[in-house]
């Protein structure tokens, strides 16, 4: 390393840092590239209606990807988010349709606000289980969340015996109406889910930047031992990120079942993979310590626009999968190249400084 950089200093200094800037902005460049490409080749791509529709699609993945980003920054992974989406949708659906049947012959109906809160609590609870398994019982994150993936999905299927909860309009006498607001409502012309995404993204970015827990998330992912020795409560950080991820998944569960006005137990299958892809595309490092919420949101948009745009162009869904895979792999290769270049530039700066 040291030997070959020392000889290459004068030649690569100027174009090295230029290339580095391009690489750092790669997700932005990719976003503009897909937008420009589809504006030219896909009919009606730039229409307002299409833009809003695409944003709603993207928002679902972006919620999950934000939660996933924090988890990955700590060096973990959360495979259970897709199942939590399914289970939370079923919880909301069951509470609206059937309420809670007590064994003594009464049935409790919650109002719609309580239902939303309970559903979110379910997501947080599964996140808590994940966090406890990983921090207190030392189960590897991959295995722990694989386990909860199956459990949550199984419970979603059990809740209705595999059936769909249809027609979630609710009943005025129980104050369970208005569920459609999350999925179909609009504020100032924009869908509610987009507003929720904006608010949550701002909160997440704020957490990452300006709160102690945010700093601790990066520190734990960068070097867990050093974090522990610096007095950071590593376990608390771990539990926080998995609970946040569960929270994001619960939101998605609510939004999807509200959009469809129905809850299906298989909803959210393989969503976790899209979330991981968006995070990675946005520059989150799977080895922990690096990543930004902004990058992840852009990553989610790149993936979302890519798949919607390809649909509009009439590309077969089989080819879509191939293309998506290639984009993810290329993103990681560029990421690695940037890391190496960065190291070289840093060494050069050190050599220059003496």
């Amino acid at each position, binding site marked *: *390393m*040291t*030997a070959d950089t020392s000889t290459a200093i004068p030649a690569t200094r100027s174009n090295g840092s230029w290339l580095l800037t391009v690489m750092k902005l790669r997700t932005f460049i990719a976003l503009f590239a897909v937008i420009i490409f589809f504006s030219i080749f896909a009919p009606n791509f730039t229409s307002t209606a299409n833009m809003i529709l695409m944003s709603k699609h993207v928002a679902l993945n972006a919620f999950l990807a934000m939660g996933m980003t924090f988890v990955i920054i700590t060096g973990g992974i959360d495979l259970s988010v897709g199942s939590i989406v399914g289970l939370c949708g079923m919880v909301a659906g069951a509470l609206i349709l059937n309420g809670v049947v007590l064994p003594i012959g009464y049935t409790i109906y919650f109002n719609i606000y309580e239902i939303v809160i309970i559903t979110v609590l379910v997501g947080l609870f599964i996140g808590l289980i994940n966090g406890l398994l990983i921090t207190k019982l030392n189960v590897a994150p991959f295995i722990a969340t694989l386990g909860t993936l199956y459990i949550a999905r199984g419970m979603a299927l059990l809740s209705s015996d595999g059936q769909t909860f249809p027609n979630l309009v609710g009943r005025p006498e129980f104050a369970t109406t208005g569920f459609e607001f999350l999925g179909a409502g609009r504020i100032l012309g924009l869908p509610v889910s987009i507003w929720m995404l904006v608010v949550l993204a701002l909160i997440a970015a704020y957490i990452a930047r*300006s*709160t*102690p*827990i945010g*700093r*601790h998330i*990066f*520190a734990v*992912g*960068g*070097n867990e*031992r*050093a*974090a*522990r*020795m*610096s*007095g*950071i*409560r590593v376990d608390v950080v771990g539990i926080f990120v998995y609970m946040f991820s569960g929270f994001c998944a619960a939101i998605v569960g609510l939004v999807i079942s509200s959009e469809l006005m129905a809850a299906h137990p298989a909803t959210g299958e393989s969503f976790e993979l899209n979330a991981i892809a968006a995070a990675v595309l946005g520059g989150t490092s799977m080895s922990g*310590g*690096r990543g930004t919420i902004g990058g992840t949101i852009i990553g989610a948009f790149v993936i979302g626009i890519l798949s919607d745009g390809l649909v509009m162009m009439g590309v077969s869904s089989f080819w879509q999968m191939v293309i998506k895979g290639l984009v993810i792999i290329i993103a990681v290769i560029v990421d690695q190249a940037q890391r190496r270049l960065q190291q070289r530039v*840093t*060494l050069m*700066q*050190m050599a220059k*400084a003496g």
Partner: protein
Amino acid sequence: MTATGIEQHPEVILRLDDVSKVYSGIVAVKRANLELRRGAVNVLVGENGAGKSTLMKIIAGVERPTLGRIILDGEPVFFSSPAEAQAHGIGMIFQELNLFSNMSVAENIFATREITRGLRGIDHAEQVAKADGFLKRLDAGISAETMVEDLPIGQQQLVEIAKAMSLNARILIMDEPTSALSAAEVEILFKVINELKAQGVAIVYISHRLEELMRIGDYITVLRDGQITGQAMVKDIDTRWIVRSMIGSDAKDFARAVDHNIGEEAFRAEGISLARRTGGLAVDDVTLSVRAGEILGIYGLMGAGRSEFFECVMGRHRHATGKIFINGREVRERDTTRRIRRGLALIPEDRQREGLVPVLSIASNLTLASLRRFVRIFHVVESAEKRAIKAIIQDLSIKAPNPDFEVTSMSGGNQQKVVIGKALMTYPKVLLMDEPSRGIDVGAKADVFRTMRRLAGSGLAILFSTSDLEEVMALSDRIAVLSNGKLVAVFDRHGVTEEAIVAASAKGHTQIRDHAS
């Protein structure tokens, strides 16, 4: 070709020609010229971090020299991997054991050189038979079919030695081969070394135990700060010559002791014990106290339990026993987070693994442990944080042109200052420093020592550990000697000799050997 081969002594098998090795933060070896002779034990000594291991790793093909050449049998050679060096007949026993604990002894000995029977795969019986032969020569009393993980550390070291013997090497490098051996096992090793010597093998022997070197060595080379400072025949010299060459006449720049008042007792540890995972105690009932403004040096050899003692004090090990007191009040908190809040701070020995978060900026590393100072409810007040960072950078004269750069962009000495800064920003009452001068250059060392003096002058109680005699003599107000987990002696700085400290530090280790043999 002709230029390289001339004026070489016929006995010299390998020569290092002006070899330097530079890592990103530090110069590990500076223009070393070294000759290894066949049929002799070439001894290498030097303090921790003097560059011995780096030099040997260059010869064994683990590291490549930044500058300079390796000349083997008069021909310049270049090793790009340990396998290539092995092909040239160079074997090495590493300081850290490099065994696969999930495999048997025989499989370890023949790893990468498995005895095969064509398509029928590995000939396990043959491997076991041969491995047993080597182990027998070492009188190891180990069956070659045992799993390595079932062996105690001393016997694992014997397996490592057997593995090196099986290479039929012409040059055999042993990096502290006796650190885990009992007295009886050392005797057997020496017998084997003499046999190998008679066969014409060039042996490189690295050890901190001077009496061993004097017994077994033929030629001696002393390293200091990456440079060779002395070369001689062992029969011409004595241990005092070695110590002098190791430490050097140009004394390091220790800050002068400032006269200041030493106050009340600030810290006391009572009966600290920690069980080792492999059995026995890593820290054995250590009781000591430090007063405000006092620097207590903790001296001990590798494995004496210094780092473990500090870790116990910081609450790293839940199963450690004993009590600690700050300003006379017992610290009942068991976890690191709350102990830091009570006024303890540790500067860990391994900067890279335990001190720094490499992906974070210099600034974030500095405030990592003290973030709550700048927090209002849950918001980090950036202006306050920036001001504190600027102050500490100035205070410790950290060379950081831009605190937002990654911490890995700095030199080793400046990285160490960041770790110290991180600890100081928690406003500690008691500062624990584990080998604070390890792996940093001379200038940064002087800065660190000056800082220690200044902090003690301002009333901080400091405990620091070191395996550097000169350092412990120059910096400490009192010197505690740890040996094999036990506190064997506490000396006052005035009126203690280096010999007394060295003798004390070996005490616990000899006891253990007596038990074992």
